[in-house]
């Protein structure tokens, strides 16, 4: 789960990390008042769940409270499109105002869990403000990593070596050392999968100042982080994805597709997308109904699929393991009838209870096209495209 910049700041402030003065507002008037209270000259930043806000015009240095107000008037309640949002962009409902920092140097610092080393890893770069991926490609020598120990945490001897590479001004590295230790504590206590400070700047007084931060929380750990769950902003999510999430369905909307896919298993769902694309059609979504699935979930999945007006075909590809094919079939038939769906449905169904599942589908009034195997799916899609 992503949270807004201002929420991420709050979370880090609880772990003794100091930011420049800042406050969030929802209306141009509020923005004006905040800017005024900060002395007029401020940075105003659109709060959306995406990076690339600066280049997209969502961040501005304003020289007066009036300028801040005008800027926010232009942005609030519009959809900001960045190179990371997709063409729909994200709705800006809040803007964050901070005082100006005199930047002498920009760094990058993040902490994430590295699946390869299976431990938390700090990444620092001498080039802050930039996309870390790009720095990694263009200037590997300016990127440093430090593995932490899941049991012991940060090892002081490694930290000493790590911060030495950053070559910061001043006699000791106490500021960066305590920042890193505090980030680690915040990371562990909030089940984070990412904390990113970008840029982390050195100001004119040689202080280390985190200017922007991003935090991602492990979705799978939200059950034990009820307070964090309250920070969820569903207006930053695709409506269908939000509905899917409520039913514990893994759904991702894909732009420009015409085949609504419903699959069990993430791998098979991806493979189904791949096959659809090969057939000359395009998947409208990724949808994994999951292992432990029930009729209600299937019905909701079907409803979500059909609510996507772009789709022309429905492709159901199931290989039941934990899930039972007959239950799934019942759900499909019920939802199809409820919605009075006429779109052609290609079904491939195997595994646990698949015989009885097919029985149920065949005895219904679905616009059914049966695929006996994965190869058939391609063929049926091609045929349907030809006959349209």
């Amino acid at each position: 789960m992503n949270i807004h910049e201002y929420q991420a700041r709050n979370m880090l402030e609880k772990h003794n990390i100091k930011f420049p003065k800042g406050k969030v507002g929802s209306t141009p008037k509020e923005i004006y008042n905040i800017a005024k209270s900060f002395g007029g000259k401020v940075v105003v930043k659109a709060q959306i769940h995406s990076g690339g806000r600066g280049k997209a015009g969502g961040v501005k240095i304003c020289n007066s409270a009036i300028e801040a107000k005008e800027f926010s008037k232009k942005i609030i309640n519009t959809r900001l499109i960045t190179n990371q949002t997709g063409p729909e962009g994200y709705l800006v409902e809040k803007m964050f105002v901070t005082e100006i920092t005199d930047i002498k140097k920009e760094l990058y610092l993040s902490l994430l869990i590295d699946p390869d080393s299976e431990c938390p890893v700090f990444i620092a770069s001498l080039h802050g403000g930039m996309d870390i991926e790009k720095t990694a490609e263009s200037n590997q020598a300016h990127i440093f990593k430090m593995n932490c120990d899941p049991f012991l945490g940060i090892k002081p001897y490694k930290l000493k070596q790590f911060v030495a590479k950053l070559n910061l001004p001043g006699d000791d590295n106490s500021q960066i050392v305590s920042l890193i230790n505090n980030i680690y504590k915040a990371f562990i206590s909030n089940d984070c999968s990412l904390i990113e400070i970008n840029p982390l700047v050195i100001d004119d007084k040689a202080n280390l100042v985190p200017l922007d931060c991003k935090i991602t929380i492990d979705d799978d750990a939200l059950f034990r982080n009820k307070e964090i769950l309250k920070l969820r902003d569903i207006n930053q999510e695709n409506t269908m994805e939000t509905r899917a999430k409520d039913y514990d369905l893994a759904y991702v909307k894909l732009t420009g597709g015409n085949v609504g896919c419903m699959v069990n298993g993430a791998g098979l769902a991806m493979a189904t997308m791949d096959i659809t694309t090969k057939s000359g059609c395009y998947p409208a979504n990724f949808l994994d109904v999951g292992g432990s699935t029930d009729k209600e979930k299937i019905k909701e999945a079907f409803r979500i699929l059909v609510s996507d007006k772009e789709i022309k075909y429905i492709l159901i590809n199931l290989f039941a393991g934990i899930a039972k094919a007959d239950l799934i079939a019942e759900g499909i038939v019920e939802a199809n009838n409820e919605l009075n769906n006429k779109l052609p449905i290609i079904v491939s169904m195997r595994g646990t209870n698949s015989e009885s599942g097919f029985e149920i589908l065949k005895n219904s009034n679905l616009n059914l096209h049966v695929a006996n195997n994965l190869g058939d799916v391609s063929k049926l899609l091609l045929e349907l495209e030809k006959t349209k």
Partner: protein
Amino acid sequence: MTILLDKNTKVLIQGVGRDGSFQAIKSIEYGTNVVSCVHPNRKDQFFQEKIPFFGSVKEAVEKTGANAGVIYVPAPFAMDAIIEQIDADLDVCVCITEGIPIHDMMMIKNYIKNKKTKLIGPNCPGIISPKLNLKIGIIPGNICNPGNIGIVSRSGTLTYEAIAQISEIGMGQSTCVGIGGDPIHGLSYVDVLKMFEEDPETKAIVLIGEIGGTKEQSAAEYINNNVSKPVIFTIAGSTAPPGKRMGHAGAVINGKMGLASEKILALKKVGAYHTEDLSKIGETIKQIL
């Protein structure tokens, strides 16, 4: 022969809720020697009127000689179940549970270092050995056929797909291992490839990968240096967009290395056979062998 399981494998089950008990029955029907269940509040009861419940894994091991365990408990309690099975020195622990926090898995992987137990999963379909009529987990037995193809996979349903296609062409599987779709999991491709390479019954290996992470690249490196048997592979997610979690916690393209194209390249480079069209796994194997 087979990997991970053998005719002495005695299975205990932790978590016999709706799904767990359904799968337990399927396993028993298939022929698996399920010897005990564990539930702190159901001591002295019996599952299916014949399999005894015990209050702890340790007790189940002591009383029934269980040497392998399977876990169906919900994600919030899965870490504890895995740790309990590790502490009881089971040979194999298969965790089916999906949605375990990554911080928990990080702890588990550090805890299990140098312990006796081999962890399979989580978020995986488990293991099946058709020749032994033995399975731990949820892979449907009826699609399997005893044979010489070993399968290792991050995806459950794609494993079934591969199994079905192999069976359809009249061949069969030695052992199939679903290693799970989470970014941090127990046995890796490399661990299982090593076992297949050493297993005289396995003649060829099917490796099923997907987007995200760099584990397929590690597998490629290992194949290059250590695997003499033919490896057939497929990678799901060529058409997935970057930055989005495609169901599996591990299936997110973060950076170039996570792309399907990169993984395909790495595996092709070391001589593995690529099945671009997933529906042609069976066919490809037929051509090679």
